[in-house]
């Protein structure tokens, strides 16, 4: 392995020839050489097979591993591998997002995307946070999910900055996998709910398309009519801890 790989790359810096590496996210190829296109630490992902070349990429998210240039020979069984790098921070097909419901109509619900979750972060979101000990390569946005959610769930913040967020639609037939024709949107989402969904299409010029038709997708945070945070009791019901009134939602599996 050539020892000329820098730890930190800046845009336009030549990293390696394409004959020795494959170009990954954060790089581009010019004249059979791989150049960095963003500033950040250089990563080498070891090839999955003997014949393939290792992938050279520049990380967009700050890394916790201090030696990025050395390919780690550790097998993936011990720890979840480094999170898959992406070409951008935008929602893409199959990425899991957290979004806030801004409008509920008969045939669809409009949501605004708060954050695009990393694969590592969605692993982190799965088990309860008290038991997670495995270090995960967090991204900049995903480090402050709690802050984003608490500010987004606050009714006072609902009007601002929606124009700055990517908008998405959840169509009636994408809400759940079974009994699609019996879906009543009012009993699935309410304005202000925080929804975990996955992107099924980049959509048209203004909207992405989301689906919640999976057990782990749906409403994750909601307030009751009385304004209290509710807890889930079943796949279609949440309950207010203060008044005890149950409300209908398409609830995401909490664990």
């Amino acid at each position: 392995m050539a020892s000329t790989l820098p730890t930190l790359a800046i845009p336009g810096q030549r990293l390696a020839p394409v004959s020795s590496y494959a170009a990954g996210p954060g790089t581009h190829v010019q004249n059979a050489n791989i150049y960095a296109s963003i500033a950040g630490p250089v990563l080498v992902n070891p090839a999955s097979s003997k014949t393939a070349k290792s992938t050279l990429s520049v990380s967009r998210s700050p890394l916790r591993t201090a030696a990025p240039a050395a390919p780690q020979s550790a097998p993936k069984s011990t720890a979840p591998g480094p999170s898959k790098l992406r070409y951008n921070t935008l929602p893409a097909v199959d990425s899991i997002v957290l979004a806030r419901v801004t409008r509920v109509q008969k045939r669809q619900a409009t949501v605004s995307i708060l954050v695009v979750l990393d694969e590592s972060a969605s692993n982190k979101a799965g088990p309860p946070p008290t038991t997670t000990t495995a270090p995960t390569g967090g991204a900049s946005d995903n480090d402050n999910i709690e802050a984003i959610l608490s500010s987004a769930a606050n009714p006072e913040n609902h009007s601002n900055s929606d124009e700055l967020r990517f908008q998405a639609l959840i169509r009636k037939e994408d809400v759940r996998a079974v009994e699609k024709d019996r879906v009543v949107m009012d009993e699935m989402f309410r304005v202000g709910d925080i929804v975990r969904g996955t992107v099924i299409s980049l959509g048209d010029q203004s909207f992405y398309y989301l689906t919640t038709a999976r057990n782990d997708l749906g409403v994750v945070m909601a307030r009751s009519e009385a304004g209290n945070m509710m807890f889930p009791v079943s796949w279609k019901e949440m309950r207010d801890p203060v008044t005890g009134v149950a409300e209908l939602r398409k609830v995401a599996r909490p664990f």
Partner: protein
Amino acid sequence: MTDRRRINGPPSGTRPAVFASSLKSASGAATERPRRHRQPNELRKIFLKTGLIPSASGSAYLEYEPSASLAAARSSPQSLIPPSSALKLACTVHGPKPLPRSATFSPNLVLTTHVKYAPFAARQRKGHIRDASERDLGVHLETALRGVIVAERWPKSGLDITITILEAEDDRWWGDAPDSHDAPWGMMNVLAGCITAASAAIADARIDCLDLVAGGVAAIVSDDEAAEEGNSSTPKLMLDTDPAEHKSILSACVVAYMPARDEITEIWLKGDHSKASLGVDDSSLGHEALIDGAVNAARGAHTVLVEAVRESAERYAGLSTSDS
């Protein structure tokens, strides 16, 4: 109802222009044009720092070192009017963010650039609405940056680049009367600074770029000293000219240059460079020498840019190791 039968005077009172070249200071000495103390190929020092505006996804602040005459005037002021000015500007990058609802679908990143002078930036106050020269700068900047950004990696999103100029270069020495060589020479220095600062801010926002694009200015000037001494006033090529320091700038050129690829994304030539023969040994045409000079100036700015972006990357990467 205005009187249309006569030629009216201006509605408010006017004063005849008083030029500093005809003024005597309190000590009796005439105020003098600031002199260039640098070598012809020596740039002013550049201060460039990224990430100063926390609410933006990327930001940069750029400042040129004030010329020696300005520093001298500050330590021992002879006049209330500063002899020259130095460039100061701030650049913010917002985005990638969703396109406005009225926009059509775009598979690429949509770039918007705004350049605005602060009202106090120049000797003549600027209004709050962008005027033609500011819009012109914005278009030039957009051309310079469009060739650098890898736009196809950011579908359906927009990027807003806003530059506020806090202090602009003068177009000429303030004591000079407008003459035939007049042109907005200061604008070219401003554009070069805008390009360098925007490049740093884009790298700070982590938008994919082909290279760090740097702006550079070169100008062909004719020095009046040489003419007074009876020599034939040979025009000289100078890098990073401060327009206040020269009697007349014949032509100037600003480029946006990518050193790693040796490509120019934006070029702006102004003035008459046909008769500027740069000495007997230099047979190259005026405009070629100008462009080469501007590229050299951009290479100099690029070294500063590299350090600023490296600092931004280290800060970004170091943040996570400290809080993990």
